[in-house]
């Protein structure tokens, strides 16, 4: 049943039949092709068509090497085993698995999530866990619970575009703090929080991706973790730790999570999307008890309950399959692809600089001075290669000289071919730069439009 029956007489419908007679010059209203235009909430202002986003439409075509997406490589999953799990689940427990469940999530899965998090030295109780529709929904719930319009969220520079879009939707202001090869810089964070406090601005939380950062490809060092927490503690600022890539490190054991060092200061988000499969849409938040209460209520109002079927399927998978062995399969696969990308970059793009990820999906590449990754994307699409321009990962329009390259989905050979094509595009851009010199940024840049691809992009 529709909750919004259309009114019977649209204020500015095209009125096709009467149009010929209605041409009283000057005075009449035009047609905006959207009768609800004046009804939208202010927060929709940035929800516009974007020519950058439209360019990604070609990226899923096989002729194009997409280094733009973030899809995990699911052909590496044991699909037969998962089919068996799904079959048994419906046949034997369908009446429960297909029913509504608890808003906080199924207890059996929350117990297993607690076990999963021990890999990162997190000691939590199943009661502290809220299961969500992907960790993306946890981001939305935390934003809904904490952010009033105008509140400040402090985030890394660059930062995960999906989180920036959530914070924007709640009309928060985003202030970036620089990173280096060891992740977020605690001193810069301290200075930023001090400055914001002096300006009387209200900072609600620090948003951080400490492990194998999306898009920067760096990890917050062990030494810096207590320092970051200390800064936030002194400033009375909550930490939102978004940690979907923690188990996808290529070297050594996962570092202890920020949540493992302070359970009262940190809301920790996790996900099965990268270690298992995003199609189940199961992530989680671990929060101090009072915050958790609010997250559960907010979750119920958003979705009533997370997917019952997905939760039971994942619970069964964790119980009956060597899931850590599967994570290792993924790690080895992504490591090979990372190597292919770094080798190809060294071979073909010596004039650029890039990060050396020790896990996760992404390399952050910075172009030679004067080049503009966003302006370059149409040329790249013509050359059949796609990337995400750095601007997508900043709330303030910076990042033009950088781009995110993903190595999670294409094979090593495709990655090498993609980097080779990209190098050709960069070469062409350098020739244009040589001809014209540096031309600065466009004068009429639209701010805040969504310049990132949708989640279905390879």
């Amino acid at each position, binding site marked *: 049943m529709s909750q919004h029956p259309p009114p019977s007489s649209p204020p500015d419908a*095209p009125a*096709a*039949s009467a*149009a*010929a007679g209605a*041409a009283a*010059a*000057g005075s*009449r*209203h*035009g*047609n*905006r*092709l*959207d009768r*609800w*235009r004046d009804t939208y909430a202010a927060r929709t202002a940035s929800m*516009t*068509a*974007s*020519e950058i986003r*439209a*360019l990604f*439409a*070609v990226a899923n*075509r*096989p*002729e*194009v090497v997409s280094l733009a997406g973030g899809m995990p490589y699911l052909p590496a999953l044991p699909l037969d085993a998962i089919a068996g799990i799904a079959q048994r689940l419906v046949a034997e427990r369908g009446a429960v698995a297909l029913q509504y469940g608890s808003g906080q999530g199924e207890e059996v899965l929350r117990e297993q999530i607690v076990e999963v998090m021990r890999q990162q030295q997190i000691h939590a109780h199943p009661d502290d866990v809220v299961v969500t529709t992907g960790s993306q929904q946890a981001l939305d719930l935390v934003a809904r619970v904490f952010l009033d319009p105008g509140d400040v969220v402090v985030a890394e520079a660059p930062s995960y575009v999906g989180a920036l879009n959530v914070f924007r939707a709640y009309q928060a202001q985003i202030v970036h703090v620089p990173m280096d090869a060891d992740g977020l810089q605690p001193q810069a964070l301290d200075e930023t929080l001090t400055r914001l406090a002096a300006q009387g601005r209200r900072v609600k939380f620090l948003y951080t991706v400490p492990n194998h950062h999306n898009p920067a490809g760096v990890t917050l060092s062990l030494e810096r973790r207590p320092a970051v927490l200390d800064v936030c503690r002194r400033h009375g600022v909550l930490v939102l730790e978004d940690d979907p890539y923690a188990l996808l490190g290529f070297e050594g054991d996962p570092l202890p999570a920020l949540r493992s060092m302070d359970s009262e200061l940190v809301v920790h988000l996790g996900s099965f999307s990268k270690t298992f499969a995003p199609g189940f849409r199961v992530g989680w938040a671990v929060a101090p008890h009072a915050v958790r209460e609010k997250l559960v209520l907010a979750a119920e109002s958003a979705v009533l309950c997370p997917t019952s079927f997905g939760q039971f399927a994942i619970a069964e998978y964790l119980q009956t399959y060597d899931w850590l062995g599967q994570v290792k399969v993924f790690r080895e696969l992504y490591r090979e692809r990372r190597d292919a990308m770094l080798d190809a970059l060294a071979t073909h793009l010596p004039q650029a600089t890039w990060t050396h990820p020790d896990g996760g999906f992404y390399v952050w590449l910075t172009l030679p001075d004067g080049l503009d990754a966003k*302006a*370059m*994307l*149409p*040329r790249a*699409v*013509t050359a*059949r290669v796609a990337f995400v321009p750095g601007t997508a990962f900043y709330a303030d329009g910076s990042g033009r000289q950088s781009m995110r390259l993903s190595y999670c989905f294409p094979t090593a050979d495709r990655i090498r071919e993609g980097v080779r094509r990209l190098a050709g595009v960069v070469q062409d851009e350098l*020739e*244009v730069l*040589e*001809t*014209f*010199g540096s*031309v*600065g*940024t*466009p*004068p*009429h840049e*639209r701010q805040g*439009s969504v310049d990132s691809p949708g989640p279905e992009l390879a």
Partner: protein
Amino acid sequence: MNPRVTVLAGGLSHERDVSLRSGRRVAEALRASGCEVTVLDADAHLLPRLAEERPDVVWPVLHGAIGEDGALRDVLELLELRYVGSRPQSCRLAWDKPIAASVVRAAGIAVPEHIALPHATFRDLGAQPVLAAAGAWAGFPLVVKPSRGGSALGVAVVDGPGDLARAVVDAFAYGDTAVVQQHVPGTEVAVSVVEVDGELLVLPAVEIVADGGSYDYTARYTAGATEFFAPARLADDVTDRLAKAARGAHEALGLRHVSRIDFIVDPDGTPVFLEANAAPGMTETSLLPQGVAAAGLELDAVYRGIVQTAFTA
């Protein structure tokens, strides 16, 4: 008898997304009017599929690149398939904006002064002197656009010399030749020309008033971001001149079945030709469907009539 129609949508151009949306709308309308419709992408599977299915009519709703430059239609000719839209040679004329302007000017229709500047010109003669000369010649504001392409991609109105280099470089992202064109103040309008059941119709002009003044990609494809007046708010005699100019441009370029001709109507009421589109947009926010509605016609019937024209041609 209802013809079997294959709509081609997608392709590998910068306008793939727009083409997919246009193609869906055309297919929907044709199905509603009783046609059996298949939608195919322009990829390596296309020719085998066409050979197998031998549709009665192919409707290429492909924007940009091979969809508009005549290349795909050459192939349809090779396959001896009937198709909606202009022949390859006319597509080539319309697709190259400076060439189209020359042809249309020769037919007695006003066009803005323009100059086509390949990248090599800047490289060989030095960017600064060429930019300075182009700026001095056209005066500011002026318009910079790629010589080929649609959806206003790479198009900029440049207010002063300081922004000219950036605009030219952005146009080069979409192709090897940039056009610098004098800016014509006035009313922006689009006139669609269709051949329905063999009869050529010039649809009412659609006037475009974009928020912020620039009918760019965002203004084109964000519902609500642009105000349209259909028919355009023009005096009757100006409306007549505009319709004649649109028909004149359509015929001078040898366009067929469906086209959209974009103009600025200057303060004297003279229609000034900007460009012709052999594969105009057919999305929810596109101009041609608004022209159809302003004519008091049904979209389904018009699209069906266009197919009929191609079918019996």
